[in-house]
């Protein structure tokens, strides 16, 4: 037990873990990583490995897959290293709490000359000034430099010990605890949050978010704007969000301007063409009416066409809708047309036709027609870990600022009278950070009126 703890505490483990995580990240950059939509199902996963991964890395793809390296950031390696890092940080940091607490009490106010000589920044002078006057100057200087100092006296000597920015003693603790808070936030998010990166709603349609939110989204309209050179300028979805059939929020969702309702955020993601397909029977009654987003693509004869599918349960038909090709002039389906392919329940091809926009066409005793719409794809997510993560990030930055720019400082001054007009002064200054320490010492010495002294003897290094 003890040896496990000793290992967990070791810096070697810390450095190794940091390096291991760095290497895993590198693997994650260099190897193709399986996108979420494929990893969601075993079939998709297998297809991706056999096709995409195989094409890129050849036969080794099966070994790499067995090692989980196509999903590095969710692999056992990564999770193990992270968990070990958390334990490692805890094991390093918790035992330090006591020693930090004791830090300012460790060395007393009345210390002998040896204590001074052990410091890194130590200065000793014999100066021609009365001890009493020097002590007054010292008190003022410490006060000016914001040290909270105590004064003690012994026969022949007066001692000062001071510290400042006591809170910064705790900064490394903040920094590491905030890392743990951060990882906790990530854990909470992945356990109790959800994320749907392709929540598609067609104009005029209302769709339930699910995931236990009780929310649904109505898309009133979607519009896309472009700069003169054709690069996208703005995508905006005009939506209303309902909970139990009651509108709770409405507004525009744009990139960089999400809408949030009860902790569920709606971000603008993708968009595209949608089709409202309607069939009327011989009596003019609506036999079928549905809006279908063309969210997928079909490649055929070198043409890439937007594609959507729907099944008609009554007739055991499956219908595939195709938009005009996006990579060239389509000889079959014009920009104001849509292709409709019919398949039977076993997905055998039956036939197809091309519809003109808003123009009914007779198909047996059905009249079929379509109108054009847009769909908008949202990234819907709920991340209860968020507040933890942002708090952690803030604490981390605050801690770093304190460690590096407002470090904890301690100071000791000892004055002893050599004669009535001559005093020996020793000054030691310590801090967790040596940067700027010498400068601080210099300023103090100047305030004490000591810097100009010619017989300076620097005991330190």
């Amino acid at each position, binding site marked *: 037990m003890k040896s496990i703890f000793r290992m967990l505490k070791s810096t070697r483990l810390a*450095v190794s873990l*940091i390096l291991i995580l760095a290497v895993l*990240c590198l693997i994650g950059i260099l190897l193709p990583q399986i996108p979420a939509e494929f990893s969601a199902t075993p079939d998709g996963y297998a297809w991706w490995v056999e096709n995409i991964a195989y094409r890129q890395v050849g036969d080794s793809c099966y070994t790499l897959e067995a090692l989980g390296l196509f999903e590095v950031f969710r692999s056992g390696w990564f999770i193990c290293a992270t968990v070990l890092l958390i334990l490692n940080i805890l094991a390093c940091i918790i035992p330090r709490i006591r020693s930090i607490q004791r830090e300012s009490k460790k060395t007393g106010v009345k210390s002998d000359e040896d204590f001074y000589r052990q410091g890194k920044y130590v200065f000793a002078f014999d100066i021609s000034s009365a001890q009493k006057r020097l002590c007054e100057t010292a008190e003022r200087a410490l006060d000016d430099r914001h040290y909270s100092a105590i004064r003690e006296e012994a026969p022949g000597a007066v001692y000062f010990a001071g510290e400042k920015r006591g809170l910064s003693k705790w900064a490394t603790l903040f920094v590491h605890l905030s890392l743990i808070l951060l990882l906790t936030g990530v854990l909470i998010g992945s356990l109790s949050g959800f994320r749907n990166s392709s929540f598609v709603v067609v104009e005029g349609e209302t769709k339930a978010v699910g995931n236990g939110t009780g929310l649904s989204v109505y898309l009133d309209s979607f519009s896309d704007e472009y700069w003169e*050179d054709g690069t996208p300028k703005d995508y905006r979805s005009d939506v209303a969000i309902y909970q139990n059939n009651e509108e709770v929020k409405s507004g525009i969702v744009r990139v960089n301007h*999400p809408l949030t309702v009860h902790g569920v955020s709606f971000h603008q993601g993708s968009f595209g063409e949608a089709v409202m397909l309607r069939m009327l029977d011989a009596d003019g009654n609506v036999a079928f009416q549905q809006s279908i987003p063309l969210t997928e693509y079909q490649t055929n004869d070198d043409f890439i066409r937007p594609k959507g599918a729907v099944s008609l349960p009554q007739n055991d038909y499956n219908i595939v809708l195709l938009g005009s090709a996006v990579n060239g002039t389509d000889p079959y389906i014009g920009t104001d047309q849509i292709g409709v392919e019919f398949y039977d329940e076993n997905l055998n091809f039956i036939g197809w036709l091309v519809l003109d926009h808003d123009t009914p066409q007779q198909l047996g005793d059905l009249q079929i027609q379509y109108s054009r719409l847009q769909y908008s794809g949202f990234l819907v997510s709920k*991340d209860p870990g968020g507040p933890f993560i942002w708090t952690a*990030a803030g604490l981390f930055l605050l801690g770093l600022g304190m460690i590096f720019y407002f470090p904890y400082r301690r100071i000791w001054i000892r004055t002893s009278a050599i004669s009535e007009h001559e005093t020996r002064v020793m000054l030691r200054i310590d801090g967790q950070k040596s940067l700027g320490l010498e400068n601080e010492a210099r300023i103090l010495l100047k305030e004490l009126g000591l810097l100009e002294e010619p017989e300076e003897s620097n005991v330190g290094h």
Partner: protein
Amino acid sequence: MGIEADLFLASECALLLSAVALIAAIFISKSKRRTDSPKAIRTAEQAARMLSLLCIALMTAFLIARTIRTGHGPFTSMYEFSAAFVWGILLMSIVFSWRYKNLVIHLSGFILSGCLLIYIGTLSPDAAPLVPALQNSLLLSAHVFAAVIAYGAFTIGFIASILYVIQKNDRFHALPTLSKLEDISYHSVVIGFPFMTLVIVLGAIWADIAWGTFWSWDPKETASLVTWLLYAGYLHTRLLKNWRGRKSAILLIVGFIAVIFTFFGNYLFGGLHSYA
């Protein structure tokens, strides 16, 4: 476009002149025949410093002119980001050389900036309009500005580490002493590490707003994490294992390679950052 191109050219000239003046000043102050008067040394140093200030002023003016023309901070294309990076290296070179009274660091920083300027010359200066994800000027500017400061500082750490490896036993009179190089390296991380952290945090906030997820293991994101971990490794080995000198220098050189990798990451791997 005219004034921008002029300012760019002027910055390049000023950089070249500064470099020449720096070489001259270093040569005069370190020459074995110390016949030159201290006054000559001071004058040469001052001339070099003045020219460097002129150079960074011109570069600043160039970036401002571009900001005014394009209507957004110079942070949205490789061209703009590289120019901002040059500015960061110039700034840090000047700050560190002033703080540590050393012209070699200054000169090395300027030479690296010069290389980057030559690279920028090969890029198209056209400003593309902003795609929706980039239309968040406050976060975008803060994110990239922090990166410019962090990378600028890390560049100085890299230079000091390379010089450290070359210096070995203080054998070159013209270079800073080993202990000074050590201090400079550490100081560069003291500036660079918090700013790198800020880059990552601001990037995460922005990603959360634009894409609804604060982290998506995009290559550039991951590369910045690796960089950050390497510098965290440097701080820990230094503090807890008392690593100093050569070992630390090599770690900082590796860290800087990661910085370069992060900087050009989108070129190499695509990903969500591929617009930059």
